[in-house]
C-alpha cells in the first residue's frame, strides 16, 4: 500500500475506517517509520486540540439532565401539537407552524439573498447617487431549472451566508412582528396598500390573521481576500471575482413583510399570502451585474459556460431569479392581473404538493401559497384588485 494520506491516518485514529482498510493502514504503519511519525504527530495534535475545545464546556454541576430539559421543553410547547400528517392535522397553534414553514422562509430568504447579491453601494459614493446607473426593482421572475446533478452541490444560500457571515453588521435587527386587525390597519403599519382577495373557496371564508413583520437594516463590507478564501475552502477557486467588489458596502433594507393566514375549516390546510414592497436599490458604476449573476449561477451549480450565457440574457436590474431543482418542483408562467407571474408546484419534503403563486404589481411582490390545490389561486389573486 502507498503511504496513506493525512485523511486516512486521521480516520484510522478515529476508528472510522472499514476493517479491511484499517488493517492495511496498520500493517503499513508498522513497517514505515515515516508514516508512524505522521500518525504520532496527528495523534498529538488531536489530543491537544481536543483538550482545548473541551475547556469550552461548562462544569458538570451547571448542566441539566435531559429529563430536566424535557420538562422545560414541555412547558414551552404547552398547547402546541407536534406536527403530523396532513390528513390528521390539528388547527391548534397552526399559525406558528406556518410562519416557520419551509416555503415562506425559503421565499423570504431567497428575496433577501438575491437582494444582497444585487445591492452594492460604495459608502463614499453615496453622495454621488446621481451617478447611479439605475434602480433594481422586481418586475419579472425567471426560473433557473436545475438538474439533479447540479443540485447535489447546491448551496447558494449557504454560500451567501458564509460569504457574508464575517462581514455583516446588523444595523437594525428585526423586532417582533405586529398583528393587525384589518387590511387597513396592516397598511398603516406597513406603509403600503395591503390587499386581500375577495374571492376564496368556501373553506377560507372569513377574516384572515394578519401579521406585519418588522423592518431590518443590514450592512456588509466586502473584503475580497476573505471572500476568495471562503470560496477556496468550498472548492470554488475557479470563480473569478470582479475587483470592483473589494471594499464595496452591501446595504440591504428589509421592508415590512405582511403575512395573511387563513386557517380553513377542519381538515383543510392553511392558505398563506405574503406581500412586501420590492427592494429598491441603487446600482453603482463599475460592477457588472451580469458578472455577479454569472458567479451566483455557478455557485448554484451551473457549469461556467452555461452560467455566463444565461447571465447575459437576464435583465438583472428587473428580474427576481429563482433557482428550482427539477426533482422537487415544476413551474409555469402565468398572468396575474395583467402582470407576469409564476406558478410553482413543489414537493419540498415529499409531504404532498405545495403550490406557490408569485407575481408583482405596482412595486409590490406577492406570494400566495396553498397546500391543497392551485386552481383557485389565480382567480383569488386577481380578486385583490
Amino acid at each position: 500500500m502507498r503511504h496513506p494520506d493525512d485523511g486516512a491516518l486521521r480516520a484510522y485514529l478515529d476508528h472510522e475506517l472499514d476493517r479491511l482498510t484499517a488493517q492495511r493502514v496498520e500493517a503499513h504503519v508498522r513497517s514505515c517509520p515515516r508514516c508512524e511519525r505522521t500518525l504520532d504527530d496527528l495523534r498529538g495534535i488531536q489530543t491537544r486540540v481536543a483538550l482545548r475545545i473541551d475547556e469550552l464546556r461548562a462544569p458538570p454541576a451547571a448542566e441539566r439532565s435531559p429529563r430536566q430539559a424535557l420538562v422545560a421543553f414541555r412547558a414551552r410547547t404547552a398547547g402546541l401539537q407536534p406536527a403530523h400528517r396532513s390528513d390528521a392535522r390539528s388547527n391548534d397553534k397552526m399559525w406558528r407552524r406556518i410562519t416557520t414553514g419551509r416555503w415562506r422562509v425559503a421565499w423570504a430568504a431567497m428575496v433577501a439573498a438575491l437582494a444582497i447579491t444585487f445591492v452594492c453601494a460604495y459608502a463614499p459614493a453615496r453622495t454621488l447617487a446621481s451617478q447611479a446607473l439605475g434602480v433594481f426593482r422586481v418586475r419579472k421572475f425567471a426560473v433557473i431549472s436545475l438538474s439533479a446533478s447540479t443540485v447535489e452541490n447546491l448551496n447558494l444560500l449557504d454560500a451567501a451566508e458564509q460569504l457574508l457571515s464575517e462581514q455583516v453588521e446588523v444595523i437594525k435587527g428585526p423586532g417582533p412582528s405586529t398583528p393587525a386587525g384589518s387590511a387597513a390597519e396592516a397598511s398603516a403599519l406597513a406603509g403600503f396598500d395591503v390587499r386581500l382577495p375577495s374571492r376564496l373557496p368556501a373553506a377560507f371564508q372569513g377574516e384572515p390573521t394578519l401579521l406585519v413583520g418588522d423592518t431590518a437594516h443590514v450592512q456588509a463590507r466586502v473584503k475580497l481576500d476573505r471572500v476568495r478564501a471562503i470560496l477556496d475552502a468550498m472548492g470554488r477557486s475557479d470563480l473569478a471575482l470582479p475587483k470592483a467588489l473589494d471594499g464595496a458596502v452591501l446595504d440591504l433594507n428589509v421592508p415590512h413583510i405582511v403575512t395573511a393566514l387563513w386557517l380553513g375549516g377542519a381538515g383543510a390546510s392553511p392558505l398563506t399570502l405574503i406581500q412586501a414592497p420590492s427592494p429598491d436599490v441603487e446600482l453603482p458604476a463599475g460592477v457588472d451585474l451580469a458578472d455577479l449573476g454569472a458567479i451566483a449561477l455557478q455557485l448554484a451549480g451551473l457549469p461556467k459556460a452555461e452560467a455566463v450565457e444565461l447571465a447575459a440574457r437576464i435583465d438583472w436590474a428587473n428580474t427576481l431569479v429563482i433557482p428550482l431543482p427539477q426533482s422537487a418542483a415544476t413551474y409555469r408562467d402565468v398572468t396575474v392581473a395583467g402582470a407576469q407571474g409564476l406558478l410553482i408546484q413543489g414537493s419540498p419534503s415529499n409531504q404532498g404538493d405545495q403550490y406557490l403563486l408569485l407575481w408583482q404589481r405596482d412595486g409590490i411582490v406577492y406570494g400566495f401559497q396553498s397546500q391543497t390545490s392551485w386552481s383557485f389561486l389565480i382567480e383569488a389573486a386577481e380578486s385583490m384588485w
Partner: protein
Amino acid sequence: MGDDDSKVGATDVLLLEGLRQGDSASFEALFVRHYPRVRGLLERMLGDSGEAEELAQETFLSLYRSPLTAQREHNLSGWLFRVATHLGYNALRAQRRALARDTSWQSRAPRGDASPEEEAVRAEDQALVRRVLADLPERDARLLLLRHSGLSYQECADALGVAPASIGTLLARAERAFEQHYRVLEGREKGRHETP
C-alpha cells in the same frame, strides 16, 4: 408522566415515524437521546450555558414543528446539528458585536468551587480558544466543534453537507490550522501582559 420504556432501543427511524403521527412519547425519546450532544455543542460554541440551553430548546422546537421525511438514522442527528450550528453561529455573531463594544471578558458560567483567580484564568483560556475558532474558516471551526462534541464522521458529514470520506482530511487540516493559530495567539497574549 413516567418514562415510556418501550421506546428505549427504538431506532431514530421508528421514532421519527411515531413523531409524524403525533406520538409525543416518540418525540420525548428522541429528545432525551440527542439532547446532551446538541447542548454540549452549543455550550462549546457559546460558553454561556443559559444561552446554550435556550438554543438547544430552539433546535428541538424545530424538530417538533417540522415533520421530516423518513430518513436513515444518521440523517436525523445530522439535521439536528445542522440546525444547532446555524442557531449557534447566529448567536455568536450577535455576541461578537456586543463583545466588540464591551471590554470585560467575564466568564459567564462560573464554577461554584473555583477561586476568583482560577475563574479568571479559565475565562482567559476559553476566550483564547474562542478567538482561535473565530479566526478559522467557518467550516473548519464547525467541524472541530461538531467532532469534539462527540459526532461520528457520518454525522459530521451530514451536518456540514460534505462527503463522509472527506472528513478525515478536513479534520486533520482543521486541527493543524487550529494548533498553529493557537500558538500564534498564545504567543501574542503572553507578550501583552494585560487582560483586555
